[in-house]
């Protein structure tokens, strides 16, 4: 029983190790290929994608380290997209109200003449 459990965890660890080595190799190949390399077929695409994810991971790491030091991180300096959307919706609503008000004025003017 104990052997089975150990074997299971060994297989689990081996899977992780193999996946990690595979990923590192893919990132390396993706870095070497650069953006041009991604057109070389499905494998080259996956390598390129892995390199892009690794780049993003490094950025995330830097941000987390900066946050731990109490510094402002890049992600927080960008405007909140939801807030921006809301601002646009309000602007659009204002535009529609401007439009309706103008239409109303026209109707009043026409009915008065």
């Amino acid at each position, binding site marked *: 029983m104990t052997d089975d459990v150990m074997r299971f965890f060994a*297989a689990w660890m*081996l*899977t992780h190790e*193999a*996946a990690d080595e595979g990923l590192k190799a893919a990132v390396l190949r993706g870095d070497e290929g650069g*953006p041009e390399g*991604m*057109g070389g*077929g*499905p494998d080259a*695409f996956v390598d*390129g*994608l892995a390199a*892009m*994810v690794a780049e993003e991971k490094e950025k995330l790491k830097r941000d987390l380290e900066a946050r731990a030091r109490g510094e402002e991180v890049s992600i927080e300096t960008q405007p909140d997209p939801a807030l*921006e959307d809301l601002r*646009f919706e309000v*602007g*659009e609503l*204002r*535009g*529609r109200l*401007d*439009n309706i*008000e*103008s*239409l109303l004025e*026209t109707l009043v*003017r*026409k009915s008065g*003449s």
Partner: protein
Amino acid sequence: MASRRLTIVGTVARHLIGALPAAGFGLAPGTVRRTAFARAWRRSFEDLGPAFIKLGQLISVRPDEFSDELVAEMQSMQDAVPALPAAAIRAVIRSEFGREPEELWASFDDAPVASASIAQVHRATLAQPYKPVWGVELPAGTTLAIKVVRPGAAESIRADIAIARSLMERVARMRISRRFDPIALLDEFALTVDRELDLRMEGRFADRFTFDFRDDPKVVAPRTVWPTTTARVLAMEFMTGWRLSEIETAKAHGVDCYALAVHGATAFMRQVFVYGRYHADLHPANLFVTPDNTIAYLDFGIVGFLTDEERMNITQVMAALVYRDPDRALKYSAKLGVDVPADRVEVVRTALGGLLDGTYRPDGTRDFAHFGLGFLKLLGENDIKIPSGYGLLIKSLATVEGVARALYPEIDIVETAKPFTTRILGQAMGDPARLYERIPAAIRAAMREIVA
């Protein structure tokens, strides 16, 4: 109505009869004959006015439905008509607002800036500061473009659509079209024209475009001045620069064509793959460029929309183009509504493989138009119905490629799409529902490798 029908029939007959000598009285080789008759149709449409000019523009984006010759002729159709006198335009403005143009704006120029089949554009200046939907306030004195629907245009177009149904049947009988559903085409046409006739739709889309590109100062669209806009009058910022049809002048003023081509194509990909809404009437006259390499998109009369699912499927079709994978192209085209009958799959797959293999130009760049338009044609030849939105997008991408290559011949438009498609495919890979579906199989495969 009867007299208009007679005019239509008479105009078409006159041009077709006039084309007979060029067509060798029907005995000339196929291409020569079709070109002569296609030219006659184009001239007829130009003579018959707004509805037919718009119909011609719709035909020009349907290579799946019509012959190459007719599509090419309709693409060259000029939507420039003699300007109406200012008095007629002023009358429309008066009827919309109950006021004279000078009461609405600080100044109004009677000389038109442009005149097309549906609308005419005049220059004016803003009387009071206005805060548009997005961006900085427009100060008083800002130059505006006032687009006014030509009087009677809406009525005549709608009346002509009714008459055009009988004409469509004639088109089908003359075998100009390979496979043709006149009623479906007319429904699509009526919808497009209805949207174009309500200028508020254009204003809203232009504002939305400005918002979408708020982080890119090099891509702009005219913002709408809503208090002086109605369904028939659109007041918007006046864009200055050169149309892409005047690119030689722009080059002489130091415009960087390479940057412009790449940025313009990227901006279009962003519309398609990020926002799922795109300017579907792009041609050199609808794009402006300024000396500081800013691109201004004009005339949002025809707009394409994609759902999230459609964006994903389009992305997969693009990936198929990159990997030359006909099965992937067919699989995701089917999800976009391209229903290939089982007995045709093999024929279409083989022909598609040929198209994908022939996508590369001698300089190593990819020719999207070769693939996209060839694919539409292939489906048309095999009597496979193409959803209009799919056809519109492929045609728009081919047009963007054409415009970009006119600026910079070595550009590879598929390259500009790649960062967007990569990101979308990457996001899809992280989708929990997909992970839930795929992870068991992935683990099984990994275990098989380990124990092999």
